[in-house]
C-alpha cells in the first residue's frame, strides 16, 4: 500500500481501477453508476483542494457545479453557442464568479465562510429555479446530445471513458498542484495564516486561486453531468448537493486525492445498494455515514492508510 502515497501511485491506482472495472460490468447500468462516480469525484477533487488542503469550507460548491451544467443547456439552446464552447464558457463563468465573490468571502473564517458560501450557492440555485424562460424552472431543461466531429457521443460506455479521462487528468493536475509551491503554500496557510503571511505568502491571493480552481473543477463536472444525463435541474445547484459534495470530501479524506474518488464512490453507490432496504433506505444511509465517520474519523483513505502503516492519530 505504500506506493499509494506517491503521486504516481495514486494515478496508477486510478488508472487500474478505471481499466479493470469494465471487465466486471454486466450492464450499462454499472457504466452509468461508475460514470456518476467519476463526475462526482472530479468535483470533489476540486473541493478537496479548497477544503482539505487550504482548509476553507464551501457549502455552495453545487452552485458552481450548476453553472457548468446549465451552461451546456442554456448555451446551445438559447444562445446558439456550440456545446463544447458552452462548457468552456460555463467553467469560465464559474471561475469568474468565484473570482469576484472570492475576495470578500474568503476573508471569513470557519462557519462564517460556510454560511457565506452557502448563501452564494443558494443565490445561484434560486436564479436557476426562478428564471424559467431561460432555465426551464424547477423541472429543468433538456440538453442536446454532444456531437464531436460529427460523431454523436452517446451511451454510458462512451461517457464512462470520457469522464474517466477527465477524472484522470483532474487528479493529475490536482496532484501536481499539491506537490508544488502553490500546494505547499495552501497547506501552510491552512495550519497558520500568520506564519504563511510572514513567510511571504499572499494569503488572500492564494485562497482566491484555489477557490477559482475548485470552482472550475465543479463547473466542468457539472457540464459533464449535464451532457451525460441529457438534462439539467436546479437540484444540481442545490444546497443538498453542496452538502453531498462536502460529505464526499470528508468521508473519503480531507487532503487526499484518492480519498475524493473513494468518498464519491461510497456516496454514489451506497444509495443504490441500500434500495434493498426499501422504506429503511434513508435510515440505513444515515447510519452508514455515521459508522464510517465514527470508525474512520479522518476519512476512509487517510485512516486506512495510517492503520496499514501502523500509525495512530
Amino acid at each position: 500500500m505504500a506506493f499509494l502515497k506517491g503521486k504516481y501511485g495514486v494515478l496508477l491506482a486510478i488508472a487500474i481501477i478505471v481499466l479493470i472495472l469494465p471487465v466486471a460490468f454486466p450492464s450499462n447500468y454499472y457504466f452509468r453508476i461508475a460514470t456518476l462516480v467519476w463526475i462526482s469525484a472530479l468535483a470533489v477533487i476540486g473541493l478537496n483542494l479548497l477544503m482539505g488542503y487550504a482548509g476553507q469550507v464551501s457549502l455552495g460548491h453545487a452552485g458552481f457545479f450548476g453553472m457548468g451544467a446549465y451552461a451546456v443547456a442554456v448555451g446551445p439552446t438559447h444562445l446558439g453557442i456550440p456545446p463544447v464552447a458552452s462548457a468552456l464558457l460555463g467553467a469560465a463563468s464559474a471561475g469568474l464568479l468565484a473570482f469576484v465573490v472570492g475576495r470578500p468571502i474568503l476573508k471569513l473564517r470557519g462557519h462564517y465562510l460556510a454560511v457565506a458560501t452557502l448563501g452564494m450557492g443558494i443565490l445561484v440555485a434560486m436564479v436557476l429555479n426562478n428564471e424559467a424562460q431561460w432555465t426551464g424552472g424547477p423541472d429543468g431543461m433538456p440538453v442536446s446530445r454532444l456531437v464531436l466531429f460529427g460523431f454523436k457521443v452517446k451511451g454510458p460506455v462512451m461517457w464512462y471513458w470520457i469522464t474517466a479521462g477527465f477524472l484522470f487528468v483532474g487528479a493529475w493536475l490536482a496532484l501536481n498542484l499539491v506537490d508544488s509551491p502553490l500546494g505547499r503554500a495552501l497547506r501552510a496557510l491552512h495550519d497558520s495564516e500568520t506564519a504563511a503571511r510572514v513567510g511571504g505568502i499572499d494569503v488572500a491571493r492564494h485562497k482566491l486561486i484555489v477557490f477559482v480552481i475548485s470552482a472550475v473543477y465543479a463547473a466542468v463536472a457539472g457540464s459533464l453531468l449535464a451532457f451525460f444525463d441529457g438534462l439539467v435541474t436546479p437540484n444540481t445547484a442545490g444546497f443538498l448537493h453542496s452538502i453531498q459534495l462536502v460529505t464526499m470530501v470528508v468521508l473519503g479524506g480531507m487532503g487526499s486525492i484518492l480519498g475524493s474518488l473513494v468518498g464519491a464512490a461510497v456516496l454514489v453507490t451506497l444509495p443504490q445498494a441500500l434500495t434493498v432496504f426499501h422504506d429503511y433506505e434513508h435510515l440505513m444511509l444515515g447510519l452508514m455515514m455515521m459508522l464510517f465517520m465514527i470508525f474512520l474519523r479522518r476519512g476512509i483513505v487517510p485512516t486506512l492508510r495510517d492503520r496499514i502503516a501502523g500509525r495512530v492519530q
Partner: protein
Amino acid sequence: MNAVLEVKDIGIDFGGVRAVDEVSFEIRPGQIFSIIGPNGAGKTTMFNLISGVYTPSRGAVKLAGEDVTGLPPHRLARLGLSRTFQNLQVYFRMTAVENVMVGRHIHEHVGITAQLFNLPSVRAQNRASRQKAMELLDFVGLADKADEPAGSLPYGALKRLEIARSLALGPKLLLLDEPAAGCNAVETEEIDGLIQEIAKSGVTVALVEHDMRLVMKISDRILVLDYGRKLIEGTATEVRNDPEVIAAYLGAHGQTEAARADH
C-alpha cells in the same frame, strides 16, 4: 552606514491597553539587537508591528531606509524580513522539511500553469527548495527528523524548526521571539551558537528572550521595554547594572543568570 531597521515613535493600543507606546530605536547591520522587558511589556507586539502582523496606530517603520509602515507581512517578507513566533506557528500537518520548504516561497518563481502541469521548471524548483531546506534543517540539527510530521516533534525541536524556516526566506533582518524558551541550558547554548552563526553570515538579528545568560552574552545592544515604553537602551553591561531594570525585570534570578553570561 544606514540602519537595517528604524522604528520611530511607534505605538498601538488594544482596548484600553497601550501595548506599545511611542518607542523609537534603530538596528545597525550585522548587529544582534535584543529586546527584553517584563511580561506584557510589548516585546512580541513590537515584533508584530515590525513584521506587519499588526498595523501601528502611530509612528513609522523603515526597513533599509524605506518606509514600510502598514505594509502587509507578505510584502515585508520580500523586502527581507523574517521572524519566528513566541506561540509556535508551525505547519503541524506538514513534515519538517516541507515546513522549511514553505519558507522558500518568495524564491519560488514558477507560474500556476507550470505548477498544474508539473513542468520541468517546477520539478527543478521543488528539488532546489528541498535541497536548501535540508541544508537548513541540518544547520539547526533536525536533519534526521526531516520527513517526520511536524506535529510529532517535541517542543524544543519545533522552536528550531521555526528558525530553519525563517532562515529559508533568506532574510536581511531576522526577528527571533524567545527562541530558547523550553530549552535547557545545554540546548540554549546550541541556540546561542546558531544565532551567532546567523549573525556572522551577515543577517541582522533582533532577539526577544528571557534567558538572561543568552541575551547578555550575545547581544550587541539591548532595548528594555516596560509597559510599552522604552526604559533604557544600551550595551549588556549598561542594561544589567541599571537599577530600574533590576527592579522591574531582572530580580535576583536574572542577575545571577546574567552574571553567568560572563563564563
